[in-house]
């Protein structure tokens, strides 16, 4: 750490994940202000971003169902209530657990923990059975049932969420509620200890749902930050806004004012790169004092603009006190990240995930080591 720099410890410095998805156990220590996770396919890059969302949201059902929908996985939404499993033996959220287990109290719990500047977070998720109990006032409530007691019709399969030792019981039937995308987004921005926003690989949010994020920063200094970042790709851009959206089903559209064109034109018409950057930067400025997660950072972005895109991310992350965790498997993106990281002290960390047998092993390069690797042309990918 250099004296005089504005360095602050990141919110999450150490992350431990156990039995989540394909990750049997992994510990990442020394996460930076901006961390890039790289590795071949199926090394669990995206799973780490998912685990972070689940941890920060205290296993919010709307966030988890959003994660599963993104992966087009079975969420169990709108199905037979109170059945532990559907015809394929899957229960809601089964795919989160290591090895896709059938519902059973023998399933070993998912554990996700973090340490850092923020208070440490500690979350576990396990299967359990509930009984319904009548309270003295006649109200009904769920209570955890010992496995040894008789199994009757009043038993309900559930998940027990322990978050920093506070216990919550989620009957599977409740996980089947449908949550709208907006509900998950509100959770990300408003309902958590700190904001934790996720940008998906395909920009699946679309310019329509970005309207919510736009409204939160429109006409503020952060709007200017967004415009400035868009100039990385097209320096003729002088303004951006989002229009439309009257009524529940009308989509919002991002429009752009450019020196070259008289009338505002849809952002979409400027190509994938600008759309991608708009999604990332708009999410970034909304994550002030929080965390931004970007899956497959470089998607849609030409390699010639990636260095400036990373520079913008580093600059804004420092200024707005945001921790950024991104993934990539592209050589160009990693090169650009290394270069941008070397320009700012103490901020960038690269994590390579390697699969060895059934284990996924992280290799962590801090800022100083990244500079050595760049100078010596040491292969970090």
């Amino acid at each position, binding site marked *: 750490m250099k004296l005089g720099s504005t360095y602050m410890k990141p919110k999450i410095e150490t992350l431990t994940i156990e039995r989540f998805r394909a990750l049997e156990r992994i510990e990442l220590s020394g996460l930076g202000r901006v961390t890039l996770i790289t590795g071949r396919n199926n090394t669990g890059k995206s799973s780490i971003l998912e685990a972070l969302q689940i941890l920060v949201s205290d296993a919010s059902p709307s966030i988890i169902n959003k994660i599963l929908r993104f992966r087009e996985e079975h969420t169990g939404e709108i199905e037979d209530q109170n059945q532990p499993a559907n015809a394929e033996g899957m229960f809601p959220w089964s795919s989160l657990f290591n090895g896709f287990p059938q519902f059973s109290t023998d399933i070993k719990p998912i554990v996700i923990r973090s340490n850092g500047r923020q208070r440490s977070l500690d979350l576990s998720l396990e299967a359990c059975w509930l009984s319904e109990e009548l309270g003295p006032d006649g109200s009904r409530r769920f209570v955890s049932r010992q496995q040894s007691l008789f199994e009757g019709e009043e038993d309900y399969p559930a998940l027990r969420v322990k978050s920093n030792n506070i216990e919550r019981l989620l009957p599977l039937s409740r996980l089947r509620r449908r949550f709208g995308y907006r509900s998950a987004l509100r959770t990300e921005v408003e309902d958590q200890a700190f904001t934790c926003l996720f940008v998906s690989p395909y920009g699946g949010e679309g310019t329509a749902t970005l309207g919510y994020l736009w409204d939160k920063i429109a006409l503020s200094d952060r709007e200017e930050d967004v415009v400035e970042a868009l100039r990385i790709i097209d320096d003729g851009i002088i303004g951006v806004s989002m229009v439309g959206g009257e009524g529940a089903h009308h989509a919002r559209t991002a429009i752009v004012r450019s020196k070259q064109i008289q009338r505002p034109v849809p952002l979409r018409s400027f190509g994938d790169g600008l759309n991608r950057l708009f999604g990332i930067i708009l999410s970034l400025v909304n994550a002030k004092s929080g965390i931004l997660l970007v899956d497959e950072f470089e998607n849609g972005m030409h390699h010639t603009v990636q260095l400036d895109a990373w520079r913008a991310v580093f600059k804004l992350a420092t200024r707005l006190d945001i921790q950024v965790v991104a993934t990539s498997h592209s050589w160009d993106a990693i090169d650009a990240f290394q270069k941008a990281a070397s320009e700012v002290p103490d901020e960038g960390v690269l994590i390579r995930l*390697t699969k060895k047998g059934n284990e996924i*092993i992280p*290799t962590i390069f801090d800022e100083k080591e990244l500079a050595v690797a760049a100078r*010596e042309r*040491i292969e*970090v*990918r």
Partner: protein
Amino acid sequence: MSAMAKNVLLVEGPDDEHVLKHVCGNRGLPKIDEIKPQGGVDRLLENLPVRLKESDLAALGVIIDADIKVASRWDALRTRLVRAGYPNPPTVPDSIGTVILPPANSLLPRAGFWIMPDNTTPGALEDFLQFLIPSGSALFEHVKSSVVSIPEDEKRFTPRMESKAMVHTWLAWQVEPGKPLGTAITARYLDPDVPEVDSLVSWLKRLFFY
């Protein structure tokens, strides 16, 4: 990332690189994928921890000068090994060259260390090369006495550089004067068929070609 894991040898400078290449060539060793001069001992020590994290590395060798003290040089290396995740490197280097196996379930390479000249005495590459000069050579006796008898006020090198001055003087007085260190081995001005080279070669074999 390539599918084949590679062998990499780190050395201090280009002299070490050329000597090693010619020793390997003369002894018929398979090719070491990369022999990389690091630009001095400090750079080598700075780069080592990052080199150990390089992807797809089978074995990483290090050839480094002991200079003044073998023990302190080894401590500098050993500290970096422990930090990188080798659980229990030996507290003293092996006199026949050290080879350390990576812990199970890690991505770390086999790691090998040769501390010039012979893992036990202080010195540098040129002290090792003196082993390659025929013992009892009357010419080398003349070289040594000439170098040590340079008048003090004309001696431009520090005492630590004396052995380097002797080796280069030896090469200056051959049939074809002034051959560089590496080609001097192939030209047999420096004879690679000596026990000290056997020892270095068998360390390379144990590390890379076991």
